[in-house]
């Protein structure tokens, strides 16, 4: 959400750019779709496949795996460093998948010696019929979430197997 009040802003410029762009390509390992929007996978998974960004939508992913590995995730860089004026930080998305799949979301905050992940409570279910999903972290009660961080990412952890997932829209927000 972008507003004139900086305390309410949580920008993700890559998402805006991706929504208005038309692109497609092959996936062979990690992919940076745009600066600030990447697909990252454990190299042991040996991922392949294709992606497409249709008009007005973000991403259609068709992923194959030929190995066993620990993670595959969509990383969205967020333009919010301090949470001192923020009550809730969350996201809304709309998505579909030909075969049902489960996704977990977390807010990753950079620290001096690495990062800390704060997971959103709800699992995200994707199904053939497009579904909306909204979830938010209540900042005051997230004790492990650093109030300030040099960088933050919204990360969506995807299945570690072959799958197709169509992310129609994704909108981070801070309130």
């Amino acid at each position, binding site marked *: 959400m972008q507003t004139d009040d900086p305390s309410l802003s949580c920008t993700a410029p890559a998402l805006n750019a991706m929504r208005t762009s*038309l692109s497609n390509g092959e996936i062979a390992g990690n992919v940076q779709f745009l600066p600030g929007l990447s697909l990252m996978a454990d190299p042991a998974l040996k991922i392949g496949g294709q992606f*497409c960004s*249709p*008009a*007005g*939508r973000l991403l*259609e992913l068709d992923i194959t795996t030929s190995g066993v590995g620990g993670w595959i995730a969509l990383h969205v860089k967020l333009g919010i460093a301090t949470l001192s004026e923020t009550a809730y930080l969350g996201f809304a998305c709309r998505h*579909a*998948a*030909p075969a049902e799949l489960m996704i977990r979301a977390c807010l990753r905050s950079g620290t001096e010696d690495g990062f800390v992940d704060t997971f959103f409570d709800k699992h995200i279910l994707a199904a*053939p*019929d*497009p579904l909306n999903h909204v979830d938010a972290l209540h900042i005051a009660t997230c004790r492990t979430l650093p109030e300030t961080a040099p960088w933050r990412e919204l990360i969506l952890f995807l299945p570690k197997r072959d799958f*197709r997932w*169509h992310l129609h829209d994704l909108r981070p927000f801070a309130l």
Partner: protein
Amino acid sequence: MNLTFAIPAHNDQNDLCRLLARVQQLKIAAHVVVVDDGSDVPVSAESLLEISGLPADHLTLLRHDTALGPGAARNRALQHVATDHMLFMDADDLPTRELGHLLCDLDGQDFDFCMFQHHDTRLEREHSWGQTAHDQTLWQAAKVDVGALTPVAPAAATQLARTANYPWNKIYRTGFLCDHRIGCSEIMVHEDIELHWRSFLKARPEMGRILASDRIAMIHMFHEHGARLTNRTGPERLAVFEPLERISAEIDSDMGHLGHFARPFHRFTIGLFDWIWHNLDPALRPQFTALVQRFRHAHIPPALLDDITRTDPALVARVLDHLVSDRPADT
């Protein structure tokens, strides 16, 4: 992509104004051709332009002084389409902003037609958004129910062909319609069956000429009651057999290429007969029954009917029941 909207209208100026205003708001049409099909009060170009905001040079308004039906009006409109792609519309339906996105996706693509999803207002009774369960099931069976733009494989085409035969859920390459002389039947109701089925018969899915989009790009306003053609129950419904016979003959004439459409087409016709029987003036049912019997004997081979019966016994039994209960005394 330059797209022309072809719209028949009969005593529907308010809906037409609403539609053109939406088209102008979404900036999705290079041109609009309206055929006023004998409206009691002729459609006024001035008021269409004033209310919709459409530039005058984007509108062609034609008129039939007597109503010839939506099929003739659509065919007349098609003759005036000058863009490479076109979309048949009904005056009372509305495009969504997804149509604009779909046009962006289609820009530069080579195809004969692209079928997209729609919202049927009947689903609002259940607070749902999208197509009827019947159509959605067929999209799922075709494996094109998820994806902004998917090429339709030959087997999938036979599933999609069985969906409701709407004219307004397909973006056509104008040359495809003209080259194959595909148009509407010039009858008052069921005029779009021939357009729908001949599109599938003439496109080449094996060459990727049919595309499908899961985008819900149109809102179909369902009117349960009223004077609209869709609610007619009279003898105009009996005219459906001529286009059905032509489609059947076209399939029979080229079984090598089109044989795989025989089963879905006749599964469609049996479902259509069931629907018409329930929506027909009871006094006309014996005549309708005789026409169904004639069509069945002339066009549906017994082995094919047996095959359809095996997969959909309830439907076939229901239709056969109608035939038995309404059989005229002399047959």
